[in-house]
């Protein structure tokens, strides 16, 4: 296959404990560490391995968002992607808008595979992959933990609630990654330097001619309800008594 397209979303880092803004209009992101969505790193790692096996010739990373998403694209280039595309907008985008924008990029680049994370750890939406596959009228293999390419088809193992499901799909197709597909590589310093010379194209979101999607109104943000403070017991006998008191044994 010629090209693999990988989506990279800039999100609040996995280890940051996010806080709701005091006026309830959003989440505090000022001065907060930002990273590539962890599932997207897995997506990129898989694309790089496919290329390194000689089954693809180019890996393109794409992000949709503000100018600062270039940082995550540069990290993707340092991991080994060949070039990057930023679909730039200062507006908040929604899942359908992102899927429609990705479809435009797909139509321009004609990749054999699009690999995305199964969910972003900020909005936890888990929508973009299946939406892109639907709009593209191509197969989707979500929650992938194993991917084998066989010419014009792929065999994908999917992590479903009851176990591991295997499907065959025709290519091109959309894959979304689950945790155990691979372990992403670390970026080495010389690769960060090299990545600065790799091409990064910026396309204004408005230039894609994407139809505006009917927005969901994000009316308010609030912290979750806290659980009441519990009790500590000293030993197994105390635990059993406490469970019996609650009628659980």
């Amino acid at each position, binding site marked *: 296959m010629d090209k693999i397209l990988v989506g990279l979303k800039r999100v609040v880092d996995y280890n940051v404990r996010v806080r709701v803004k005091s006026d309830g209009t959003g*989440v505090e992101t000022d001065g907060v560490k930002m990273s590539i969505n962890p*599932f997207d790193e897995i997506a990129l790692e898989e694309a790089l391995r496919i290329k390194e096996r000689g089954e693809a010739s180019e890996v393109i990373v794409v992000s949709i968002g503000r100018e600062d998403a270039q940082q995550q694209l540069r990290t993707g280039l340092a991991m080994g992607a060949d070039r990057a595309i930023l679909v730039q907008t200062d507006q908040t985008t929604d899942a359908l808008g992102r899927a429609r924008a990705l479809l435009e990029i797909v139509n321009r680049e004609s990749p054999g595979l699009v690999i995305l994370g199964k969910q972003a750890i900020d909005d936890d939406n888990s*929508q973009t992959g299946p939406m892109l596959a639907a709009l593209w009228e191509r197969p*989707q293999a979500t929650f992938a933990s194993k991917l084998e390419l066989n010419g014009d088809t792929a065999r994908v193992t999917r992590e479903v609630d009851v*176990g591991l499901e295997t499907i065959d799909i025709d290519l091109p197709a959309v894959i979304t990654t689950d*945790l155990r597909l691979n372990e992403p590589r670390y970026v080495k310093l010389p690769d960060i330097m090299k990545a600065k010379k790799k091409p990064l194209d910026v396309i204004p979101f408005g230039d894609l001619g994407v139809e505006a999607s*009917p927005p969901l109104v994000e009316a308010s943000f609030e912290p*979750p309800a806290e659980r009441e403070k519990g009790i500590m017991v000293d030993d197994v*006998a105390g635990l059993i008594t406490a469970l019996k008191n609650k009628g659980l044994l």
Partner: protein
Amino acid sequence: MSKILIIAEHDGQTLNPSTAKTVACAAEIDGATIDVVVLAESPGDVAAQAAKLDSVARVLAVENVANTNALAAVIAPQVVALADEYTHVFGPSTTFGKDLMPRIAALIGVNQISDIMSVHGSHTFKRPIYAGNVVLTVEAPADLPVIATVRIASYQSVGSSNSADIEGVSCTAELPSHTRYVGLQAGSSDRPDLQSAAKVVSGGRALGSAENFDIIYALADKLGAGVGASRAAVDAGYVPNEMQVGQTGKIIAPDLYLAIGISGAIQHLTGIKDAGTIVAINKDSEAPIFEVADIGLVGDLFKLVPELTESLG
């Protein structure tokens, strides 16, 4: 007046409990009429189970050999063909629903509302974001279909004393052949299903090995409990991923949850916050799990867990 279509999750013979919980969410919308659609090779048995669910007005049975195994690319166009009559289309936020519902939403041309945890009007819902650290109130456009997944841990199953009408319907949608089912390797477990078990025992990285998980299984078997694990235990290879509880695994709400050797990362806590009673056993008294535990016990799990199993007789 809301007309809601719910996509039944099933394995060809048995209706998944996620469907009864999705119905419970839909029933929170005032004055809603709720239909359930069963797409299957031979939908009779599953449709009969769905017809028993309280609050369901009609069950639509779509018989097609293409529906033998649930493939999102095959099911989505059939649902879209039926969706015209409805104001809402709901599915469970299980791997089945997460795979299917966004495909439906995109074909209809709307955003999806993921993981509804509570209903505040026909078009206003609350949902968790940032691993449950934030609760977002979201309003869908009033003049467009609402496509949503339901966070099943937030709902109790509706009762099953109903006898709704079952109607066979045909879908004229053109179905793709680009996606083909090969097989399923089910987790070989005689234990209760993690997502619907009343009691769950989970182990974390502190177990140290796959073999050491045996003490978790022994306790679970004594309690008649399902078995789960933290992401750390899954990553370490002690147990398969289908046992993972948390943001990137399963969100569960058992009556009793025992967290053994689990420190309680926020990503894990988001998977259990609707549990009735949380018990934590951990050697580190400062572990965050104790902040959410109803009953905490500090000590060596390799001593305490066998002792607990033994004491349960």
